[in-house]
């Protein structure tokens, strides 16, 4: 089993770097969806014991959500909001990719120091999931468009989900579903808000969302 976990982890790392280096929004959505499918299937691979109905159910819902529904929602947002095809990073693609590899190195170092019981330490599964979390945060911070921030949130979420899976944290089925439902509603609401942002501003660049702040002494007219 551990061999296939390693393959999964290897692909997830490559996908992280691919998201950081690709300039087309559509590609990024596909990559995140593929990563979501892998993460969803991960729970079937890490188990040493028999695969139960419970595991299959959760994996099926996770794959359907991350691999099918989320990309559809995001593509719908692109179409309706008429989003351009460019990712528009604040940090250039080569530097982003370099940062991605750096995150992986940092995660390796961090996870070697984490107080996690040896039995649960599946090869380099923990550094990989940790670096996904960092990459997600990095995308949220360094990409201009609201849609790419949602993608960053999804990468972050994939990372945390995978982290939970490789640690073999077992939650009751209802709790697992509740968590997935929350993420689904979050992406759904974010999609709606993106649509409104586009209608209000004619594009979805978040650097225009900067009228509310305290540093400027003169503030715009504040009406109800």
């Amino acid at each position, binding site marked *: 089993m551990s061999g296939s976990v390693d393959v999964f982890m290897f692909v997830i790392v490559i996908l992280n770097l691919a998201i950081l280096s690709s300039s087309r929004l559509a590609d990024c959505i596909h990559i995140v969806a593929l990563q979501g499918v892998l993460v969803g299937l991960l729970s079937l691979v890490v188990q040493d014991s028999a695969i139960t109905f419970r595991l299959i159910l959760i994996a099926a819902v996770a794959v359907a959500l991350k691999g099918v529904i989320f990309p559809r929602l995001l593509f719908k947002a692109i179409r309706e909001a008429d989003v351009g095809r460019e990712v528009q990073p604040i940090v250039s693609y080569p530097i982003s990719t370099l940062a991605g590899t750096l995150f992986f190195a940092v995660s390796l170092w961090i996870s070697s120091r*984490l*107080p*996690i*019981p040896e039995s*649960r330490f599946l090869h380099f599964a923990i550094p990989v999931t940790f670096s996904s*979390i960092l990459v997600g*945060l990095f995308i*949220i911070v360094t990409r201009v468009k*609201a849609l790419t*921030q949602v993608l960053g*949130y999804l990468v*972050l*979420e994939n990372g*945390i989900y995978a*982290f*939970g899976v490789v*640690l073999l*944290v*077992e*939650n*009751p089925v209802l*709790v697992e579903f*509740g*968590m997935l*439902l*929350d993420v689904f*509603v*979050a992406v759904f*609401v*974010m999609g709606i*808000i993106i649509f*409104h*942002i586009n209608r*209000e*501003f004619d594009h979805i660049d*978040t650097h225009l*969302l*900067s*009228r*509310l702040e*305290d540093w400027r*002494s003169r*503030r*715009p*007219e*504040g*009406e*109800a």
Partner: protein
Amino acid sequence: MILLLVAVPFAAGIAVFLVRRKSFSRIMLVSAAAAHTVLFLFFCSYRANGTPLSKWFYLDDLGTLFLGSLSFLFLAAALYGVNYLRRESSVAAEKDRGDDIFANAPEALFVGCMLIFLSAMTLVMVSRHLGVIWIAIEATTLASAPLIYFHRHDRSLEATWKYLLICSVGIALALIGNLFLAIAGSGNVQGYAPLFLDNLLANASTLSAPCLKIAFIFILIGYGTKMGLAPMHTWLPDAHSEAPSVVSAVLSGALLNSAFLGILRVHEVCIASGLGAYSGDLILFFGAISMAIAAVFILSQTDYKRMLAYSSVENMGFIALGTGLGGGAVFGSMLHLVNHSFAKAMLFLVAGNILAVYRTRIVSRVKGALKILPISGILWVCGFLVISGMPPSGIFLSKFIVLRSALASGHPFIVVFSLAVVAVVFIGMSINIFKMAQNGTEEAIAAGDEKGERTLAVLSPLLLLLAVVFLGLYVPPVLENLLEHAARAAGGS
């Protein structure tokens, strides 16, 4: 059984979504809020005769305290909300005829989200499983985001986006905390159900200390974002100032508390496993930073709703500070939590009345509130005196208790620091509040031709104000008992 408290507002919210009639939504808003309060009182009395234990949901002392303040606060906000919605729809009708500045979201959407928001916050308070608490806290974000975007214009949109993204990321980090908590408990072979709170508390001594420490940091940062602890508070002033006043009142008075409860639950586990000093110090540290940052921003604030929002940051910081100190300070902290809920909600509701007449949130454009809005004007000034801790108010009592026990436990520096912050906040707020209350030139007063104030618009703030003043004079034995038990659970003595 206890799930009725969650189910009733949820069902009412869904019904409002389906029916989509204005009169129906308004009736449902008030009746569901009233039903919530009645159910809460019923379960409270039921609790006294021995708690029926369920593994998933029951009301412990902390939960009862938080739920009580939520329930009464929401009832007051709902009563005010009916009048608010009527005012907004008449304003919207005016706009249809001419200058279209912005539209409002449909009323059914507003009321439906409000009720589901109440249901999610209730779930946080009755749940005994940390995974369910996580789900519920994320659900509060999702239910309240459309509420902030009730007024459809660019600024509220910006506030909504920041709120949604910052809080979702924060809460995602809290999930990492939950996972670490689960590994910390994986040492116990028997009864492997790691995230049940009672299970964790019972096996606290076997938890792995390093894992628990990491878990607490993630939980504190994650839920602390939602609670408005600096430096993760950046969404809070935007969301509170752009949301409709009745929503700001619930956000400030109840939402911040429910996020704090998420932190307290893990703090309880830390205390039980002997790491109380570690987690307490961290809470204290972030509380102190919040107070300091809020004081700086209040001093130069030109927008009165943002000023109230920063005052919330300051007060949540103070509550965290008291909880972190431990000992007798926790009792004061819990009392402060109730007082702050009511006082801040009351101020936001009054701010809504002022906003409706002057149509601006800029302090310098509001003049002579005492003359134009005789009742709201007085409430505004009284509310300020209460929140800044003038003696007959509950805030004075709770701050006094915290600071006295800080002094008794040998933390004179914290006392000096807190008093300095309180003084700065007092100066910053009083300048703005009194500018707004007085100074009305004759023309300005003539321009604002308000035809008297509606009873519903001033009744809720008045009742909340009286409640805070009452708590300053006399804490009923039932409440005192509850506060003592809650404080003991949160590490006090």
